[in-house]
């Protein structure tokens, strides 16, 4: 059965960016929010350490220092005008979250509490600064809950457990809606909108060791790619230095913000060698590489692929109040009390710096020249503004999603007020239904879980922290074979009701499409910058590569185009911490 709906603004995804966008879009337009989960299950809720803003509550801080740190952290790939705007607006938006009721921790004077975080400094790199506003180590949980609460207060319309499978563009290229699969019934729904906001989050499930939820399969960018929209800077994916060994579950950078220390098998504080000034609080790409190099040098704990994160000297009080959740993960999954024993950690695939290209109002760009797709917006991790460039600083994901979620929501509402309904294309639900029917009836040779496991280990080994031309090329070849294989699978569940079996198959196809773009973009970039570290091209090459990659799929082939980085404030310098 096919259902149709008309909403002026349709938001896809209900994490921090989607909810913030919905709050603002719904103030100026009839708005619906679609999510394949329940809103409070979204991955924003797992963000731990804090949200950065130069409030200066505990010491002097300035937005322009935050801007500098973000640009330097990005290895000079971020667009500097966008970064500046984000860091300026971050301050107001934190106050706004507080007004919404977010339970920030407080200073003795009752102000919002702040702590140091990797790469955040005062006075252009001089020393660490307390900038991360926090609510214990569940800041993301509090943001997600608070935004959802506000959506309830304002009666925002939700379609929970609706999985979006297609993006609808009008004949002249305007965004006109989406096709969604109602998970409970298996029915298809066509949502006709004037403005469409994608806030579907990241795609860390492409890698074997990841902090990301099972649901982070990049459905939004994969659908956009299929419709001819490019993906920007996909070669830059952040590996967070401190995932729980083998599991990938995140141990917050707040541990190091509070004074935790990384140690190798000799007990050495090895970050002193890699980043003499900021040490353990250098930015994430730097610390992740350091851990890999220690392991390669046989300095991993017991010769294994991990090091220790030592918080034993912080005292039980700090561990149990400010790092409560991380401590609890260690107790639950490792049987370790971090107040007494060090935590075994390894880098874990964490955050997509790349994604659907947008400008600062969330408008999706159709090409490297910056032409926009009318009516189409993206915000949060799915989008690439770009404010994170080649490496995101800790806390800035939360800053990004509230600042740009808000801007996209406002812009979408304004767009839908100023424009008429664009016509739906001739075919709306039909291709999706045919695709589903085909998957249900096919008796293919391959198992989805096997293909997914192979993709994840391939990406981990060959398109992970360190990369070479040979490795990436071999991964790319194999990904293309896996893409073929993923069309030749058997979905065991043939039913209509709550068929998560077929959805997992679709999610795998989405991940493989994004893996192909990631590898192709990484192969072409013959330099090392931020999270993209090429062992065969070890230096940063500003002369040739101070550019954003725009990868699109034309006639089944990846096409790469480039746009210059917007360098308006800080000229690129050598990056040391």
């Amino acid at each position: 059965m096919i259902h149709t709906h008309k909403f002026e603004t349709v938001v896809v995804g209900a994490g921090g960016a989607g909810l913030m966008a919905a709050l603002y879009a719904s103030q100026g337009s009839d708005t619906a929010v679609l999510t394949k989960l329940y809103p409070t299950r979204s991955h924003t809720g797992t963000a731990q350490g804090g949200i950065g803003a130069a409030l200066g509550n505990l010491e002097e801080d300035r937005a322009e220092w935050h801007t500098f740190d973000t640009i330097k952290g990005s290895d000079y790939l971020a667009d500097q005008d966008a970064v500046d705007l984000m860091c300026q607006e971050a301050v107001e938006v934190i106050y706004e979250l507080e007004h919404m009721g977010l339970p920030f921790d407080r200073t003795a004077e009752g102000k919002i509490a702040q702590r140091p975080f990797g790469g955040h400094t005062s006075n252009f790199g001089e020393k660490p600064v307390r900038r991360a506003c926090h609510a214990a180590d569940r800041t993301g949980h509090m943001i997600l809950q608070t935004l959802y609460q506000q959506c309830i207060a304002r009666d925002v319309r939700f379609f929970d457990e609706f999985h979006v499978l297609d993006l609808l563009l009008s004949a002249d290229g305007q965004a006109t809606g989406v096709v969604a699969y109602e998970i409970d019934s298996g029915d298809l729904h066509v949502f006709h909108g004037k403005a469409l906001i994608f806030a579907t989050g990241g795609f860390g499930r492409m890698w074997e060791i990841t902090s990301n939820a099972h649901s982070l399969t990049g459905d939004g960018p994969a659908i956009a790619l299929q419709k001819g929209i490019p993906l920007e800077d996909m070669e830059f994916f952040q590996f967070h230095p401190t995932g729980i060994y083998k599991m990938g579950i995140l141990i917050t950078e707040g541990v190091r913000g509070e004074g935790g220390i990384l140690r190798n098998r000799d007990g050495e504080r090895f970050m002193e060698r890699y980043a003499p000034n900021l040490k353990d609080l250098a930015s994430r790409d730097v610390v992740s590489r350091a851990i890999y190099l220690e392991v390669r040098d046989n300095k991993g704990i017991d010769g294994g692929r991990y090091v220790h994160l030592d918080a034993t000297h912080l005292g039980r009080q700090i561990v149990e109040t400010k790092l409560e959740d991380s401590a609890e993960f260690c107790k639950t999954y490792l049987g370790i009390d971090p107040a007494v024993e060090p935590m075994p950690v390894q880098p874990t695939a964490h955050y997509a710096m790349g994604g659907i290209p947008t400008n600062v109002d969330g408008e999706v760009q159709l090409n490297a020249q910056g032409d926009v797709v009318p009516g189409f917006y993206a915000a949060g991790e799915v989008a690439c503004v770009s404010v994170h460039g080649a490496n995101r600083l800790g806390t800035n994901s939360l800053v990004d999603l509230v600042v740009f979620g808000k801007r996209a929501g406002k812009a979408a509402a304004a767009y839908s007020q100023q424009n008429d309904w664009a016509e739906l294309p001739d075919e709306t639900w039909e291709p999706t239904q045919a695709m589903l029917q085909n998957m249900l009836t096919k008796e293919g040779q391959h198992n989805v879980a096997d293909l997914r496991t192979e993709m994840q280990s391939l990406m981990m080994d060959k398109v992970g922290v360190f990369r070479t031309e040979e490795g990436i090329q071999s991964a790319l070849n194999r990904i293309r074979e896996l893409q073929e294989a993923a069309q030749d699978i058997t979905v065991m569940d043939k039913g209509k009701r709550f068929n998560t079996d077929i959805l997992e198959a679709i999610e795998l196809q989405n991940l493989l499409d994004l893996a192909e773009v990631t590898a192709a973009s990484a192969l072409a970039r013959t330099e090392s910058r931020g999270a993209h570290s090429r062992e065969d091209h070890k230096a940063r090459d500003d002369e040739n590569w101070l550019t954003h990659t725009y990868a699109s799929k034309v006639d089944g082939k990846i096409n790469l185009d480039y746009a210059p980085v917007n360098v308006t404030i800080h000229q690129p310098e050598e990056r040391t911490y």
Partner: protein
Amino acid sequence: MRIKMRIRRFNPEADSKPWWGEYWVEVEESDRVLDALHQVKWYQDGTLTLRRSCAHGICGSDAMVINGRNALACKVLMQDVGDECQVEPLRSMPLIKDLVVDMEPFFAKYRAVLPYLINDNLPASGERHQSQEARARYDDTTKCILCAACTTSCPSFWANEDYIGPAAIVQAHRFIFDDRDDAADLRLRVLNDADGVWRCRTVFNCVQACPREIDVTRAIGEVKLALMNGLED
């Protein structure tokens, strides 16, 4: 190690009533029950249906009954389940399929307690202050992830599905005891209803069930006291 999974199955398109499926899985001691369920789904029977997302106890998707107790499947390790692991959907919730229940009645009760800060006196600009003591007053109940493990473990809820349940009371507590909020009276009125807080018989199942270790019964007790004595200032 090899462990038998005994899983309550129900396919609304084929079954007239639920049945037990049995599956053997090879797991590590440190694996989660969620990993074992995935092994069944991915390699033995793709029709097995459950909700899950973050897999580390934060998103609240995979609350279910494991060996008779409510828990998140991603927070129970296989080394702790014994020789056999029995998994059922949450009790007293409308069953959709296998381990998936209809969460809408649960969220309707959540919405009924006005789960959002109500305060019309915002500072014109800048931040509003709150003392560390005032912030600590409601800290415990901010941890709730709305997984429904508490409410569906409660005998009062089993006996009367109209009971608003511990999760909604926890959510109300989070605002009633936040000194920035002005609508405690409205929420207390909701909780003073016949199906409100007085249905709690302090059985403490909710405290055991809560994966976030919230002291749920204490929060409910504080709400009862506020109803009897009024809120302290």
